[in-house]
């Protein structure tokens, strides 16, 4: 293991110009988002969103927080592989994955504030006397906040190296094992709890998603999505920075991902059959269609990269990663919005589709992530060093 790891190139800044078409577009999208948020904070949520009392949670919760944090599970999934299952060869993937996670979670945490109707009270959630430990949202909030702090600490060696803070790095290395342990337990807790959030909504959630196993289903998919995001992001980074693609790592990683995915599929269908809920998947309605779109996305990777040969094809790895991410998107949209029926079928007047300003805020958050990733990978030691740097 040790020998294996020291053969890797240490992380190094990619370098290159920070001003280009991509960063410019990101800047414009972020400016639009800030303008919309100004309107939201001055006039209220109704001024920019299509939220209503039938659908009190829209894409700012479901996409920015629930899906955003699941997409940010790359750091957690790879750290598990390296430090818990002792697969040191994946070490070069840790920093880039951790960086994406750091952004994903930090932005999810900030995004929550945009959606809170009485945001100035947000600290109540951590304050004894106000906080309600019976609430699933309390658990999610505390765990996500703690995890954001843990991830910044886990990532801080990248800054220490850049600024030559040798002592600080040494001190941190002494407790790194504990941060790593926290960094695996906290996401397990809140990624499962993000699923448990829908349990209290009871019969308003379609039985295809309303199950006591929903925490396990959310946890398993979060891990799988974590690997999917690493595949996706490695392919995109390799192509955008014209770097060599790390196929020797991605091929076995994809295999691990398929194993976890198979476990998820077995639990998912087993649960539906045991509860007798599978019938809802064969009704002629939008909800059943949405269920099958979700399932097809989760099944597609087996067709795409089922063979070892296909797993060495970057295009197929990219597509498989994308399919997993889409599956994760649909599962969470389905559980929270499409499979949600306010008033349990007796009150059918409610509709929700995100407004353009709502969408622009979500897109703006994504732009911050892309811009931050570009700035940090170009200026800080994150991606593995390459002998000839051709970044533009």
């Amino acid at each position: 293991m040790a020998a294996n790891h020291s053969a890797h190139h240490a992380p190094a800044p990619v370098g290159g110009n920070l001003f280009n078409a991509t960063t410019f577009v990101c800047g414009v999208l972020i400016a639009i988002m800030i303008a919309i948020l100004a309107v939201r904070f001055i006039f209220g949520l109704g001024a920019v969103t299509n939220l209503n009392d039938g659908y009190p949670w829209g894409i700012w919760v479901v996409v920015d927080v629930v899906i955003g944090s699941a997409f940010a599970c790359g750091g957690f999934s790879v750290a598990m592989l390296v430090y818990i299952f002792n697969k040191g060869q994946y070490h070069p993937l840790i920093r880039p994955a951790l960086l994406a996670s750091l952004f994903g979670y930090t932005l999810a945490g900030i995004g929550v504030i945009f959606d809170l109707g009485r945001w100035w009270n947000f600290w109540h959630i951590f304050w004894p006397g106000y906080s309600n430990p019976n609430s699933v949202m309390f658990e999610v909030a505390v765990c996500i906040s703690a995890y954001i702090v843990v991830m910044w600490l886990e990532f801080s060696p990248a800054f220490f190296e850049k600024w030559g803070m040798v002592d600080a790095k040494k001190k941190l290395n002494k407790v790194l094992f504990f941060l790593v342990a926290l960094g695996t337990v906290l996401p397990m807790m809140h990624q499962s709890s993000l699923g448990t959030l829908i349990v209290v909504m009871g019969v308003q959630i379609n039985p295809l998603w309303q199950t006591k196993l929903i925490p396990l289903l959310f946890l398993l998919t979060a891990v799988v999505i974590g690997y999917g995001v690493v595949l996706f992001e490695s392919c995109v980074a390799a192509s955008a920075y014209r770097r060599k693609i790390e196929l020797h790592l991605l091929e076995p990683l994809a295999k691990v991902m398929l194993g976890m995915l198979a476990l998820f599929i077995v639990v998912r269908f087993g649960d539906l059959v045991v509860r007798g809920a599978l019938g809802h998947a064969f009704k002629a309605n939008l909800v059943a269609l949405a269920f099958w779109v979700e399932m097809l996305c989760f099944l597609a990777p087996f067709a795409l990269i089922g063979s070892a040969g296909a797993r060495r094809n970057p295009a197929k790895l990219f597509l498989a990663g994308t399919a997993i991410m889409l599956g994760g998107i649909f599962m969470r949209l389905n559980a929270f919005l499409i499979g949600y029926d306010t008033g349990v079928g007796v009150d059918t007047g409610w509709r929700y589709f995100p407004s353009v300003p709502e969408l622009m805020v979500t897109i703006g958050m994504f732009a911050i992530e892309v811009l931050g990733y570009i700035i940090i990978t170009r200026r800080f030691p994150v991606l593995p060093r390459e002998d000839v740097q051709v970044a533009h």
Partner: protein
Amino acid sequence: MSDRRNFLKGVVAASGAAVAATALPTPAEARETKQRPPEALGLLYDATLCVGCKACVAACKQANDNPAEFSTVDQLWDTPLDTSGKTFNLIKMYRSGTMETKDAEENGYAFMKTSCMHCADPSCVSACPVSAMTKDPKTGIVEYSADACIGCRYCVAACPFGIPKYQYDSPTGKIGKCELCRHRYKDGHYSACAEVCPTGATLYGKTSDLLAEAKRRLALKPGEKAVFPRGNISGGKDQSYENVVGNYQQHVYGEKEYGGTQVLKLSGVPFEKVGMPNLPPEAAAAHSESIQHMLYGGLVMPLAVLGGMAFIAKRNVHHDDDDQKGEN
């Protein structure tokens, strides 16, 4: 090869632990559905007595200082179509075919009151992360505190009756819902809707008294005359009067739904047709809190997993340290 075997062992052990942690029921810690407190206060709404005058809607607006809401072009008077952050009580109308007969499912019409049911085991209270929604241990009233509220609207999403509503048109929007006029008790008043109801269709009192009254009505013979109380059934002056017994569905809505509610309802038209959902006897809050307590009760499970992870990570992270010394 041994590395691979260890890895697979690790995967199996970890997935096993994860499955055990989330899937295995531990009945000892399962949280049962809560029951109403013995002194619980509530309302009994009898749709067959309601004449649709909406005096209760107006009285509710006044008692809670809520503005009029309009659904017509001329905006002459309060015409909300549903409860909202500023309308806590509403009489809705059921219409079928020719609408000839009151309280008939076919070719009839009927009224139904929409307001907080004050559940024995409320989803909103379980959902609220900051204890802005609380249930009074004595009266059982589900109370809201805007000073505590963070505006997350989890209560809005959780309630199966669609009752807590948020004020989306304000930068400082609050949740609005019926609190049974608890702010008026100190002046000797009770729920404004019951106080003003001319027919006793909305009756205030202890839920135990209201449940007995509801069962008395279900035992009466439809079409015959009977005496019906008005106002407050558990005290105050007698305002009872004689009226015709309605043709009831033999179901006290709220007796058992979600563990029971403190507001009870009687109707001539099946409840699902007048907007009252078909709910199981176990509260969703009990399911949610059972999972929550099983996984996080006393932080036993998280700390055990953390200990295990720290032990494994200590061994494995150590390797990296050595490597990095070699590189630097």
